[in-house]
């Protein structure tokens, strides 16, 4: 990055450290923080949407829809989420290729599962073999985001389902007695009021989501954990910047970053809760009223 870093073997002390920390691989490492933040920024709204859909389905009056919703919300309870992470990434990948295979090469006669192999016609590969490396990485990232969204959507569905049930029944009955249709009651009364009940659960979920981001590494995305391992491992004299095993310091750095992120979120979410609870007919709102007196 700097011109003085052209020959790192001659450097010493602080200038060595500066050059080391701005080497090309380290720049990649810093960019991978953006990967994590992107994951958070994309997953949170998508998962919330999934959760909303799941909660609505679980409340539905149509039995099959309700069953789907209940199954979706129940799925995360008994099984470790990491199983879902590992499962969905392969399953989604194979599912997409299988569907594309059905469309692109309908006259393919060989079976798709040949013993230990999953073989679709070459045109159905996603992304196609000829496409650039960046597309492969993006596809991998998109699959990871979608997987996160499915799993966290199920968590969010649980929270939102509980919150929808927590809205006082009298509120909905009043709206019905004014002649609102079920859809109007849902949109005008239920949804605006449920957020204050959902907030504790959703903030908990946000913390969990932050703490689940290192699992990206398991899904094959080059995230901060990947780079910390890569950069921290011992480097021999063959490398430009030889150093012993420094993984401990890299992971310590990651840990501090995560602690900062969770602490910051906690402060912001507490502020938000205060604002939402203000004037609400709940225990928290009542406590605020008392202290204000």
């Amino acid at each position, binding site marked *: 990055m700097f011109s003085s870093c052209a020959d790192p073997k001659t450097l010493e002390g602080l200038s060595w450290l500066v050059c080391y920390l701005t080497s090309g691989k380290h720049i990649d490492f810093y960019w991978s923080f953006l990967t994590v933040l992107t994951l958070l920024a994309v997953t949170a709204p998508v998962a919330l949407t999934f959760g909303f859909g799941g909660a609505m389905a679980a409340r539905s009056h149509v039995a099959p829809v309700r069953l789907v919703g209940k199954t979706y919300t129940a799925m995360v309870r*008994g099984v470790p989420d990491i199983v879902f992470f590992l499962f969905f990434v392969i399953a989604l990948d194979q599912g997409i290729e299988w569907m594309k295979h059905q469309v692109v090469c309908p006259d393919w006669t060989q079976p798709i599962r040949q013993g230990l192999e*999953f073989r679709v016609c070459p045109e159905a590969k996603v992304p196609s073999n000829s496409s650039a490396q960046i597309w492969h990485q993006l596809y991998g990232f998109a699959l990871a985001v979608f997987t996160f969204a499915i799993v966290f959507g199920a968590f969010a569905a649980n929270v939102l389902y509980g919150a929808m049930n927590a809205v006082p029944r009298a509120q909905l009955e009043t709206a019905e007695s004014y002649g609102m249709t079920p859809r109007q009651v849902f949109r005008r009364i239920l949804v605006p009021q449920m957020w204050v009940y959902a907030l504790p659960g959703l903030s908990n979920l946000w913390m969990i989501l932050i703490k689940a981001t*290192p699992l990206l590494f398991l899904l094959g995305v080059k995230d901060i954990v990947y780079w910390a391992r890569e950069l921290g491992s011992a480097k021999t004299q063959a490398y430009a910047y030889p150093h012993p095993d420094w993984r401990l310091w890299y992971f310590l750095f990651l*840990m501090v970053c*995560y602690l900062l992120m969770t602490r910051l979120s906690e402060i912001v979410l507490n502020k938000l809760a205060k604002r939402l609870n203000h004037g609400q007919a709940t225990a928290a709102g009542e406590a605020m009223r008392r202290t204000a007196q």
Partner: protein
Amino acid sequence: MTCWETIGAYAFRSLGFGEKLLPRTDFTLCQQFTLIGSGLIWNVYFGALALMLGFFLSNALALSKASHKPWARKPAEWFIFVFRGSPLFIQFFLAYSALVMLPRGGVDVLGLHLPTSWMTSAWAGALFVLFLNTSAYAAEIFYGALMSVPKGDLEAAEAYGISGWAKFRRIQWPTMLRLAWPAYTNEAIFLFHATTLVFFSGFPAFQQRGDALYYANYFADKTFNPFVPYPIVAFYFILLTGTLIGIFGLVNRRLNRHLPSNTRSKIRLRPQLIR
């Protein structure tokens, strides 16, 4: 190979008994069920031991967090903050890379030679991390419960002349445990779920002795078919979760036995934590 022979060969494979080589071709459903079940031994080992040891540390931490003296409160607060605020996955990596830095040959303390190499193996290192982690989460739960012990109970105790240690042992602590139990059950369940991370986080699976998810991942990689091994893991974990809820439910019943049935706290499974 019949299914019984497979069970004989692989039932304790995760502990190093039985067949040395894992199956390489012609994977049967029986093999997958047996090996993954064998791996579950490790999940139970990690979960059960960490939970039992963690119970004591978490109680101590909850008490010191509730203390008025800063020298007792601050360390507990920091401990809980660090372990609850950072991902378990990073904690595993961090602990492993710290443990491998210990001198290979062991250390000499006051003339005693202490071997250190065993600490980098999963059964010790990962257990240690899980123990500290669950202690922090449980301590927060117990602390919350300790704070919500009804004021009237304590005043009644003092009116009867029960104070100090006796008050704590006979009134405060049992009530804290009772109030915390549903949340603690959740914590236990998600601790067992978290044990699946161990062999994905730096700790090596010596001679391919891994946990349930390790073997499931092995099968999924080899057969390129995720639709069999992962549902098997899911099946085993649902069983495990059910068993846990059963056991904790019994304890819960005992803790609530003096209350009228409509005021007892029920265990409700709430997805709380991925760490």
